[in-house]
């Protein structure tokens, strides 16, 4: 057998061994950010439309905090910054570090679960014999949590987002904590963090389904409509989620003693009144939209974000963590005001799907396109806004390409995941009926 029977068991020595690189990584990450905060780039980066959106721009937000008026930040975060406005840089660095650590622990725990499941499956001899090379080894899984943390902390997108003091970093931290709590099986905390993430920007609502699936799986409750235990837990989790959401909304109401924030935050997210260019698909589309079709297309585009939840949950009900990844990616592509910080969060998960690499079809093309687009954003922005030698179409074209690349990336990972699962049940080297080597197609 090619696989070792003992998993990455958490013995103290090993923990200490792992903690050292993580600490080093954190130090490096914080140093980079601190240096950038002190450099002249700290003035430039918050102006970049790719990095900040009207929803999370510090410049807008801080102005609002100063004038204690309303804008598109949720009341709780404004209240939070009342206290820490002088330590904003530290808060944003800590948020990034927290996200990284949370992701690190979550992925570590998740890997353990995956490994245990794989072991049981192997012992039950459920895998076809030719699939042994698909089996994940502890050796390759060992560094995955560290890689995830590194992918998040050292991703230029995260660094830019942090230096721009985009509140996107805080939202990411909340989502990371939510994932951690879910993976750890703490349903209450998971519900609270999910509610907090939803409160911040509606869209994480779609993460409710994967979290519920994961917790059910963890408690060995099958997803079965006839089972009372399923309904009991679902009701319980829903209640915790809605309850904490209610508490947050009511807290905001008591802070402001008006409901205006609902329309100014969520109305702003959903109706897309601000057409400041960003890396998403909404701004130019709705700037050029005919007035009488606007409402229709806003509905279509917003439904599109939530639309995939149910089919994805059905398809991936055995793999909730991958479902979370898919959902985060879909949100960050199709949300109304995306920034590079959102992309950084789902990109941090890519090392966790290392084992899918052999099934990825166009990873090279997609990475090249993503890199090229990232470089072209500032160039074309400059040509349009400052040099005046290009127009809005140039920047728009790049956003289109960037989004196509992201879509291809995500669907590629989805394809690879499904394909690996298929191979794990049907064998890696499939044969046609006539015995010749077969190709696998989607039908």
């Amino acid at each position, binding site marked *: 057998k090619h696989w070792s029977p003992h998993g990455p068991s958490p013995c103290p020595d090993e923990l200490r061994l792992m903690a050292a690189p993580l600490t080093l990584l954190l130090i490096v990450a914080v140093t980079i950010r601190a240096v950038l905060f002190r450099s002249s780039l700290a003035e430039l980066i918050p102006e970049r439309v790719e990095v900040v959106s009207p929803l999370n721009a510090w410049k807008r937000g801080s102005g609002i905090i100063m004038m204690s008026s309303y804008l598109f930040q949720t009341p709780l975060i404004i209240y939070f910054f009342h206290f820490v406005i002088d330590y904003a840089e530290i808060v944003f660095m800590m948020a990034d570090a927290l996200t990284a650590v949370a992701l690190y622990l979550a992925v570590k725990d998740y890997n353990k679960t995956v490994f245990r499941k794989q072991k049981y499956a192997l012992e039950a001899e459920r895998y076809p014999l030719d699939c042994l090379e698909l089996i994940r080894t502890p050796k390759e899984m060992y560094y995955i949590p560290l890689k995830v943390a590194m992918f998040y902390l050292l991703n230029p997108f995260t660094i830019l987002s942090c230096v721009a003091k985009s509140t996107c970093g805080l939202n990411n931290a909340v989502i990371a904590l939510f994932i951690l709590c879910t993976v750890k099986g703490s349903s209450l905390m998971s519900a609270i963090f999910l509610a907090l993430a939803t409160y911040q920007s509606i869209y994480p609502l779609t993460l409710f389904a994967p979290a519920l699936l994961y917790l059910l799986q963890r408690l060995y409750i099958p997803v079965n409509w006839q089972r009372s235990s399923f309904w009991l837990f679902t009701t319980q989790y829903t209640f915790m989620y809605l309850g904490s959401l209610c508490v947050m909304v009511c807290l905001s109401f008591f802070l402001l003693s008006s409901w205006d924030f609902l329309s100014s935050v969520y109305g702003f997210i959903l109706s897309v009144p601000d057409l400041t*260019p960003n890396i998403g698909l909404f701004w130019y589309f709705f700037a050029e939209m005919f*007035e009488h079709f606007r409402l229709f297309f806003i509905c279509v585009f917003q439904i599109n974000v939530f639309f995939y939840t149910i089919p994805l949950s059905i398809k991936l009900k055995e793999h909730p963590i991958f479902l979370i990844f898919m959902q985060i990616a879909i949100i960050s592509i199709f949300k109304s005001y995306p920034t590079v910080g959102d992309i950084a969060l789902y990109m941090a998960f890519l090392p966790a799907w290392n084992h899918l690499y052999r099934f990825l079809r166009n990873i090279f093309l997609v990475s090249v396109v993503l890199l090229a687009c990232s470089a072209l954003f500032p160039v074309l922005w400059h040509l349009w806004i400052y040099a005046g030698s290009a127009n809005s179409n140039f920047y728009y074209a790049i956003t289109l390409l960037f989004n196509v690349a992201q879509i291809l990336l995500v669907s590629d990972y989805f394809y690879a995941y499904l394909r690996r699962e298929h191979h794990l049940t049907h064998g890696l080297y499939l044969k046609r009926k006539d015995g010749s080597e077969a190709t696998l197609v989607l039908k």
Partner: protein
Amino acid sequence: MLAFILCELVYVFVTADVQETNQVKDAEGQTHAVEEERQWEATEVETNLSLTDTPSDNEADHVQTYDIPPPPPAKYKIQEAAEEERRDSLETNIVDVPSDKVAHVSDTKKTLDDPPPPPEKDRFQEELVIRPLHSGDTYARNKGKEFDLKLYLVSHYQLFPKSLGQVILKFSVSELHISFTQGYWRTMQWGQPFLLSPPGAELWVWFQDTVTDVDIAWKELTNVLSGIFCASLNFIDSTNTPLGVGNVTDQRFLRSAVLPREIVCTENLTPWKKLLPCGAKTGLAVLMNSEKFFHSSFYSQALHITPVCQVRCMYIQSSDVSWELRQTLNVVFDLHSSGQEWSLFKMFSRTLLLTEACPLAFSSKVYVDVTDNPQVSNLTLATPLLSQAVVLEDRRTYSVYDLTNQATFGQTRSLNMLLRWRAAENMLRPLLHGERYVAGYGLQKGEIHTLVYNHHTYRAFPVLLLDTVPWYLRLYIHTLTAPASVATTNPVSYIHYQPSKDRLQPHLLEMLVQLPPNSVTEVTVQFERALLKWTEYTPDPNHGFYVGSSVISALMHSVVAMDTNSTQERRFSAESSYFMWVYTEPLLVNLPTPDFSMPYNVICLTCTVMAVGYGSLYKLLTRTFQVEELGIRPFQCLLRRKQSIFCRFQWGEFTARRGSRSQQAVIYL
């Protein structure tokens, strides 16, 4: 040096309570009648008339017409800005000019009710003020008219234009000010104008407190006025109507808006002329030649309707209120081609001769400013009727020509005069002056700089800076800076900021700024330019978007107002302090534009990307992995077997070939 002439035409309509006289040329008799009338009825308490005892009533009349300038909206806003005491002093000083006849009102109300009200006579007076400006311009203040009208339930219009009377009644307007201005008044070169107005169109209205929905009334009123004046006032909506502190004071009945984009031309002048009782047929209005007027450096026409009443004008619906309509026209003629010489013919037109006063006018006068000792020679009259008049807090000397006197016209039966003047050596510099510009490059962000000058040599005073910025410039209010000078540590002592709401409400920024003596205070604020929907751009989007002038207003003490450099001039000695305001330039800001030819392409391309996303996920969600088999899959075909003979044929073909294992035709159904 450029030569400019300012000419100002003011028409003042005042209700005359005289019954027996139609047009009294004798000023003496008129005033007596007025006195009599007031004692009998005591409804007219305009300070105008209360002073008209002396034979030289020209002067007194004149003073008063200038004394009550219609305050701009900013004036009311200074009230909330300044502290309580200041507010009181302001109100007593400015708003309530006639404030001493409380007892009279209550008395006379009854007496009014008992006898049927006598048919009121409107009074109409016209004036033309001509003044050489210091940079050489001549400012012809073609001073308009002033009506007073008592609006009874069934109105009887004599001189007061019916169209405006109906507007006042219908919309329960208590005060209305509207101005159309082409060009920018250069305060530093031309000095203080008589009446300021910002470039473009400005409208501000106080509604009576009987109006239930002010916003609807405002919307309708702007549309009506837009029709009356042939102007695009219908573009006034909530996005350019700033709202001050909402329900705190009476300010919820105040609405004001500025349209800096408005272009003023002949079509605005014609309806304005039609409001005059004599039209443009006779009187001073004869001179109104639009061809000349719109070749000028500055053109401003305005119309002010204010109630004139005894106490505080609180009960506007009550019948003891009369209305004053003042139409003014300010034109600055550029006469540099003709040197420093000027005549009526040259300035206006040779064909339109001033031959008589409007027969309906109570008084009709031409004032020529001779303070700086230019040589005036009346071409038609040997001896000009020289007299002195005080105008706008400046003691200035005018020669006055009374048009109601036939002798003025002399033999030729038309009035013409010639004026030569030397270059002015020292002008009374305006103490307060404002400038504004946009800094920065690119279409992403920018910075508005407002410079406020205090030219007083030793006195510091506070000013209120009022800015209304459209929503598509997103002000970063935390970047607001006003660099502290040596004298003051923090020049801005008060800020009121009302953030904008996208497509609903503009930014409103008010600041109380302390100006050190002889200083420039620079207030800067950064903004970001928004990308708009393609339908929200103007037809010429690359021309840029206008941002209205900001208003700098101050309460000047008369001691402060005294310029120490030219001590011979002392302004406004009668009052301890007076209110003044200046407008800055409007701004022209470029916004990023989308490609207007692209809507179909953009819709197609973005939808394609969405479809790529949807399609790729849909494919993965609905399909399963299968080993690709060559040949026809029988089961799919079986499903359709009933429907298609072709399918049956293929099925047969497939079974036939099955044994031979031929792998030629790969047909997917």
